[in-house]
């Protein structure tokens, strides 16, 4: 693809999630997991999406990268991180803490659509899924609402400024597609390795604009579509057993149905 100077504006969704390394515990009332006082960070796949967007800007194919997050006041932390890692501006759609626990991908998609209605973007880049709910829905929902093409689970993104050539990781292998702009993309693990935020950029981040909007002002309906019935821990791992020899092992495996009898 011939590369020409682009003028693309990229909107990157970044979600504040429980840090990947935390061992989560279920709340005693089984309505969810404990998040109070627990270490949070930017969703790893969102970080990868952001890195790709910043790379597009460095290659002069994009002119602006805007970070977006929807949630409580603490979202500002991940937005500042995004600004420190190269985003030019940030948009925070703040909702009450009560609404945060009931936020669904559908609401986020509706909100993104409203933002895009008022502000032209060429690419919406999300992480392929959030590591707290593993929903992997927002991108597809948004593409459907906007009638935009979607290229999800991207492991490589190339552009000539007019369309995108995206290599996607799918169960069968790699799928390379050409996608016209504007489009919705989602980042998979092997797309890139996010950079460290440099010290000067961390300090410059606090001077970059962070715009606050409310879901109400945007006219987004946050009524939940789903009800969580119960959240419980996976069953505790049972102790195994010892066998005396290999033939006994094979017999046992056959008995339990792990090996064809």
């Amino acid at each position, binding site marked *: 693809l011939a590369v020409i100077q682009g003028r693309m504006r990229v909107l990157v969704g970044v979600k504040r999630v429980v840090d990947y*390394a*935390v*061992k*989560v*515990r279920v709340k005693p009332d089984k309505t969810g997991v*404990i998040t109070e*006082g*627990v*270490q949070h960070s930017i969703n790893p796949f969102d970080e990868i999406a952001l890195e790709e967007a910043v790379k597009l800007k460095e290659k002069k194919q994009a002119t602006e990268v805007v970070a977006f997050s929807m949630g409580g006041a603490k979202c500002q*932390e991940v937005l*500042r*991180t995004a600004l*420190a890692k190269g985003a030019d501006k940030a948009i925070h759609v703040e909702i009450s803490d009560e609404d945060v626990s009931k936020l669904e991908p559908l609401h986020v998609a509706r909100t993104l659509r409203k933002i895009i209605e008022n502000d032209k973007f060429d690419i919406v880049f999300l992480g392929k899924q959030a590591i707290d709910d593993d929903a992997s829905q927002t991108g597809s929902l948004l593409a459907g609402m906007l009638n935009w093409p979607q290229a999800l689970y991207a492991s490589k993104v190339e552009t000539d400024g007019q369309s995108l050539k995206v290599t996607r990781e799918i169960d069968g292998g790699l799928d390379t597609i050409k996608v016209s702009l504007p489009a919705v993309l989602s980042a998979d693990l092997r797309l890139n390795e996010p950079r*460290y*935020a*440099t*010290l*000067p*950029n*961390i*300090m410059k*981040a*606090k001077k970059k604009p962070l715009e606050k909007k409310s879901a109400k002002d945007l006219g987004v309906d946050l009524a939940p579509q789903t009800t969580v019935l119960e959240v419980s821990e996976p069953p505790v791992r049972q102790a195994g057993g010892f066998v005396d020899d290999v033939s006994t092992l094979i017999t046992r495996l056959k008995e339990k149905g792990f090996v064809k009898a």
Partner: protein
Amino acid sequence: SMLSRCLSRLSSSSLSSLRALNTYCIHPNEGLTAEQKEIQTTARSFAMNEMRPGMVKWDEEESLPLDVLRKAGDLGFGALYCDVEYGGSGGSRTDASVVFEQLAMGCTSTAAYISIHNMCAWMIDTYGSAALREKHIPSLASFENLASYCLTEPDSGSDAAALRTSAVKKGDYYVVNGSKAFISGAGQSSKYVVMMRHEGQPGPKGIFCLLVEEGMEGFSLGKKEKKVGWNSQPTRIINFEDCKVPISNQIGGDNEGFNIAMAGINGGRLNIASCSLGAAQMSVDIAIDHLKVRKQFNTKLADMQWHQFKLAELATKISASRLMVRRAALSMDENSPQKAAHCAMAKLFATENCFEVVSGAMQMLGGYGMLKDFPLQQFMRDCRVHQVIEGTNEIMRLVIARDLLTKPTALSDA
């Protein structure tokens, strides 16, 4: 830490199996602003990904990892508290302390060298002419060039003002004669910030600061010293024999050298104390993992009261040391009149207590603590010297005592 998460295991009741969701009481991020936590996260990731994997190799091979230093430069770690005007990062002393503490968790020796390099950059940035700053700060900030600080001589360590390296002005050059000892980074550095005296002018007032560059006529290196620790940094005697240095390389005024040294050393002390903190923190984390796994007499070490008590003492020492270091950093950032004494106290307290912590953690590992397969012994060997450099802990006591005995007490306030 990632190590602790990999190694900790579940068992039935007992102290060792409780897993709290919140972090432990000695986490280094306590009391930091959101921005400082961001800086700490970057430093931590860098230390774990880029330094920790190489720490043992650099010690064994006695090699300074220039490629890793350049990466550190990319992150803004080369001139942390220099002005942004010529490429510094414009960070505060607290930011710098937070960074060095994390880097020391990756490799204490290399982190300490990075802090010395930063002190040199700051001296040039603060006291150097615009021409010197423009010429040298950018490449120091990026770690394209390395810097060494040269005050100590074979015959003058604590008695720094008795230094004998001297210079005579001859036209556009200073002609320098003398030797400096224990120079960290010598051989790899291309820029040497040297304290020397105008020939014939005695005492501290006769001292000025000159930037000597690699390749200058009459400048030579001594042999690389073999040391018990700090092996990733070369240490050498350096010699000046009718060494010709342009007078434009003078840093600061004719009689300002000793003041520059004293001003810079506050930060130097704070930084090295921060490195001790990192070594201690890592050591305690390693010890905690070991206590949860190792069993004797059919009991986990973590369930034995002696280990619990000892661990509590070690953790309390870390916590107290960190508070001293952070307070000294704040004094520096606020330019408090007590900053010199605060830095001396922080250095004295943290380097001594953190060494005890590392040693105490080693004790918990028993025989394994002695093996070079385990990194703990390297943290011990690397942080021992912190009680000696940047002014010995004996000199720290002198500095503190002088403050106490020459200033009005609270009693005399009334």
